[in-house]
């Protein structure tokens, strides 16, 4: 039989075979290249913070970050690498950011508004995941729902709890009528406080601390003004000077309220603020999504869902303060 189109025609067979060979080779080359690319192209996360090289208790957060990413399939040293720049000084943030840009990291994680702003000012290409208070007010993002630009992250809402913290001091002791806020004015967080409703009958004033040398004068003012209690602000400066601040407070025998839980372990009396570990889970999701191709502009800024109240009963005892039943009931963490 004379086939009009014979499959077994020698020419056809040759062409088909050649095509098959070409396809196989092409696929092989593609697969090899992809593998090579995966191998050579390791995802790199740059971490820029103003903290000191020794992160201390923050270690828990970094561990959580690594673990979270590992759970999402990123293996450190194989598919993901971390570049750390803990500069310990705001002035060095821009150079740290530039180093990250030079390293061509795939995503930059910044702690605090200054680091976020430094990164934002240096690149509009490398995605930034920030961890900052009031990112809209600071101009890091356009809005929480639609960040636009190359940055997204966590709006920590620390200063938004300052009034609440003062209220806690009041609930701790009805006699509290004058509260000092120790914070770095450069970072402008007290401004947010000004816009908030302060519990009635409480006199609040700022003690500005830009560096360690401001502390002695600050505590002198506190002693001078007859302060009943102290609110330690959430800026990086207070954390960098944590030992000195806690020493001063102990010396002055003043009850104080802090934002982040780590203060509790160091001897802080009360902490009230967002649960950072829950937020860190969100940071992990952000980094994972961005490394898998998501655009920061499409990822709304996350706000904390959970605010934890921590009480250090040992410190309370030292200060001779009895914690009211309501506070004990509401406390999420108690150090005894």
């Amino acid at each position, binding site marked *: 039989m004379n086939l009009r189109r014979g499959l077994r025609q020698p020419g056809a067979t040759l062409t088909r075979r050649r095509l098959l060979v070409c396809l196989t080779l092409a696929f092989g080359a593609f697969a090899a290249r992809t593998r090579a690319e995966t191998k050579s192209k390791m995802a790199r996360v740059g971490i820029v913070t103003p903290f000191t090289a020794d992160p201390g208790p923050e270690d828990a957060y970094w561990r959580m970050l690594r673990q979270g990413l590992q759970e999402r399939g990123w293996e450190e040293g194989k598919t993901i690498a971390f570049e750390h720049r803990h500069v310990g000084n705001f002035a060095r943030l821009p150079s740290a950011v530039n180093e990250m840009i030079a390293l061509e990291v795939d995503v930059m994680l910044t702690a605090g508004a200054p680091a976020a702003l430094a990164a934002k000012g240096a690149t509009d290409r490398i995605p930034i995941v920030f961890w900052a208070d009031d990112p809209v007010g600071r101009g890091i993002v356009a809005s929480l729902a639609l960040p636009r630009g190359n940055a997204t992250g966590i709006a920590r809402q620390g200063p938004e709890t300052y009034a609440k913290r003062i209220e806690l001091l009041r609930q701790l002791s009805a006699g509290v009528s004058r509260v000092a806020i120790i914070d770095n004015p450069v970072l402008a967080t007290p401004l947010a406080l000004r816009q908030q409703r302060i519990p009635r009958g409480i006199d609040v004033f700022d003690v500005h601390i830009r560096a360690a040398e401001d502390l002695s004068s600050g505590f002198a003012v506190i002693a001078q003004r007859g302060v009943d209690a102290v609110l330690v602000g959430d800026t990086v400066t207070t954390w960098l000077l944590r030992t000195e601040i806690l020493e001063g407070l102990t010396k002055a025998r003043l009850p104080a309220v802090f934002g982040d839980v780590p203060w509790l372990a160091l001897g802080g009396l009360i902490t009230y603020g967002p649960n950072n570990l829950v937020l860190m889970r969100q940071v992990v999701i952000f980094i994972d999504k961005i490394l898998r191709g998501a655009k920061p502009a499409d990822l709304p800024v996350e*706000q904390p*869902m959970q605010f934890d109240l921590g009480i250090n009963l040992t410190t309370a005892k030292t200060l001779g303060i009895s914690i009211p039943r309501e506070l004990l*009931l*509401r406390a999420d963490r108690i150090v005894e």
Partner: protein
Amino acid sequence: MNLRRGLVVKYVAYFATLVSVVLVASSLLGMYLSYGKDRQILGQLQQERARSAALQIERFIQEIERHLARSTLPLIDMLTGSREEQRFELSKLLRQVPAIADAALLAPDGSELAYVSRLGLDAEGSGKDWTSDPAFVAARGGSTHFGAVHFRKETEPYLTIAAGGRSKVGPIVVTEVNLKFIWDVVSRIEVGTAGRAYVIDSNGYLIAHPDISLVLRKTDLSALSQVRAARMDSSANAAISMVADDRTSRSVLTSFAPIPALGWFVFVEQPVAEALAPLYATLWRTGWLLIGGLLLALLASVLLARHVVQPIRALQKGAGEIGAGNLDHRIAVDTGDELEVLAGEFNRMAAQLHASYAGLEAKVDERTRDLAVANRHKSEFLAAMSHELRTPLNAIIGFSDVLKRQMYGVLNPKQAKYAEVINTSGKHLLSLINEILDLSKVEAGKMELDISPFNLPAAVDNALALIRDRADIKSIAVDVRLDSRLDIAVADERRFRQILLNLLSNAVKFTPEKGSIAVASTRLGNAIEVSVSDTGIGIAPEDQATIFDEFSQLNGAQRSEGTGLGLALAKKLVELHGGAMRVESAVGKGAKFTFSLPQPETY
């Protein structure tokens, strides 16, 4: 015969087609039915998932509602109690339900007794008026109030839940619930590997999704066809499973279940490719089984066709052998059916043919023997006749001639006339005998020709001299037109003269007085042609075919004047030379006899 398509091919085609059609039809029908059924089951499963997801979301809200109900109970007696205790109760509520961002305790008259918030400042006895607030109004009516979903800072979804008011004096708790907490519930619902569950509010806004970013972006899904379908039929029993495009235009199998109390819809979606994967796997399996079945059918068809065709081939081969004359051949078919009977019939036919042939050959042998005997008798008769008849006939002719010449005395006229008759009749009889002898010699192949060159005009003259007297008597003119180039001819001269004489005698015989006869010769290629024409009575066309037969004479011819063998002998002699004789004539128009004699080239 060269078969275009053998029986095997035909049978294979028939069997395979038959089996394949049945197999394919049944498989397709089965696939169609099972596809529809499986599809339905998948849809039902998806709906069940949606219902289960809706139940989980509903349970989350109910849990909050239950806490509200529990917290209001002890407060009933505390309406007149301390404000601190009231706030404490609210704090407890916040402690128990993390999703509640803030809570207010309202007196039955709508005034705020206490307020507790996670972010804002607490309040005691602010007396704020809630009477116009829909949450208060609904809760006052005795039912739990679920407000519309609203987005704080245009990003986080919140829901107002108010409960209480079981009695006219009971307090009311109004809470703001952060719906981001549903994320935990929604992301725990597993829908295959790439599927997901999500929740939309009555306006079509996404309020819970495993990808929280979509919720925080305040994604409006009201344009999706499945959302439109859900919002159109939000009855509690509504359960639709449909294929639609999701937010990213990916084709998904989607089902929803409403949460009537909240006006929400819980959707469960799975990419069509994944949802229908088991279905496709079944189809593939059926397809492979079908292909396997078809191959088996083809194989079985080939075997069956071969089995059926084998005895037919044996029959064909056997019939061919018999047809070719091998009548001893016997066809061996052992199938126990009609084919075996047919083979038997063939064998019987071959046997009968064989027997008939054997009889026929015997008869032929017998007849041949008879013929040989007859031939011998004929030869003997002719030999006897030539000897026994010619001897007395020569005596009759010789002595009648002596008498006629009156050598032994004068005869009276009557005696002279009778002696003349005796002499003529004797000569006639002798020539008859000679002609019979010649004819029988030619027929027996014993006539030998003496082929040699001779003078053709002399031979013609010789023959003419023998009939000239008779022609003169009838005043017949004889015209001779010989080809001047033809002097010598090569043939048996005696037989040539015999042929020509015969034709001339006939011409004289059948030409009336004062007629004419013409003799002509010519060369035609490698032969000479000699013709004798007359102006005689002619021969009718129907008689022209028989005039060369032995003892054949034309009607009306004087029988005494010829033996009826002359023309037959002449023709045979011409043919013995390798030539041919023909006649052209018409009644009343005379006749022209022409004969040709081939001439050897060497002469």
